[in-house]
């Protein structure tokens, strides 16, 4: 227990180091956000492939529109409640929050572009490029390599989506990218979080 008593110089230094270290370790995540988006995108991508083979292409639009409307709404409400529950706000959290706002605005811009000039296939390439960018920054901030690896997978997926046709192949690439680029790192982040709780 820390008491209120006079200090030597060495004791002062030790306290400063100990407290700064305690605060630095505070930023960690459960990985729930990655799993939430991962499963939504995985279901949408796989169902797009299935609908495409069944010649039910009109349903593909419904699936994606539904996900892109319902997903952010649930996610923002959930995030708002989570933020209310946190006992500490770090500068890293604050910066990541601002980047996530910029990410969602950019995502909306890409979605809108899909309704005008950009083909849906190209729009998906831009989604994955943007996701990769976001994952790379997030993974670097958390110093969590699987997220950084996920970013490279998503960048590769973006290139493939730009390069190949028809749309059903893009959705196959999308399914694989989400599985290995989102869900696997998400579950690894969750496992690391649970392990950390057990150690505590």
């Amino acid at each position, binding site marked *: *227990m820390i008491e209120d008593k*006079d*200090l030597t110089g060495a004791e002062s230094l030790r*306290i*400063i180091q100990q*407290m700064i270290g305690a605060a630095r370790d505070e930023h960690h995540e459960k990985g729930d956000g990655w799993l939430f988006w991962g499963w939504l995108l995985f279901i949408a991508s796989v169902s797009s492939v299935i609908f495409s083979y069944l010649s039910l292409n009109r349903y593909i639009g419904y699936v994606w529109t539904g996900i892109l409307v319902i997903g952010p709404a649930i996610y923002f409400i959930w995030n708002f409640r989570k933020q209310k529950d946190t*006992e500490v706000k770090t500068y890293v959290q*604050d910066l990541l929050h601002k980047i996530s706002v910029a990410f969602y605005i950019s995502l909306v811009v890409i979605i809108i572009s899909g309704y005008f000039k950009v083909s849906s296939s190209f729009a998906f390439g831009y989604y994955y490029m943007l996701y990769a960018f976001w994952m790379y920054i997030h993974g670097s901030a958390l110093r969590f390599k699987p997220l950084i690896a996920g970013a490279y997978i998503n960048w590769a997926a973006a290139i493939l989506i730009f390069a190949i046709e028809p749309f059903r192949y893009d959705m196959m690439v999308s399914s694989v990218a989400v599985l290995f680029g989102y869900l696997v790192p998400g579950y690894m982040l969750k496992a690391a979080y649970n392990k950390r709780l057990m150690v505590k």
Partner: protein
Amino acid sequence: MDFKELDPILHSQLRLAVVSLLISVKEAEFTFIKEKTNSTAGNLSVQVNKLKEAGYIEVIKQFKDNYPQTICRILPAGIAAFEQYVKNLQSYLSIEK
């Protein structure tokens, strides 16, 4: 080398721990500081008030889900004092050697 006296407000275990913790985060709840400094609520409350009176930290009292919540945040004067304290500590330690 000149030895400068260490700031008496910061040169106390618990107050130094609180400021060192707050310097690294944007803001923190009282319960979080209590847990990290491993202090008692009573003692921490007294030391937090001293830091507040010195103008080093800001204390925001509000309600969260019908429960009182106390949030602490370091102020520019607190950051300046902490930086000066570390500088003085470095010169003090080099004299000690």
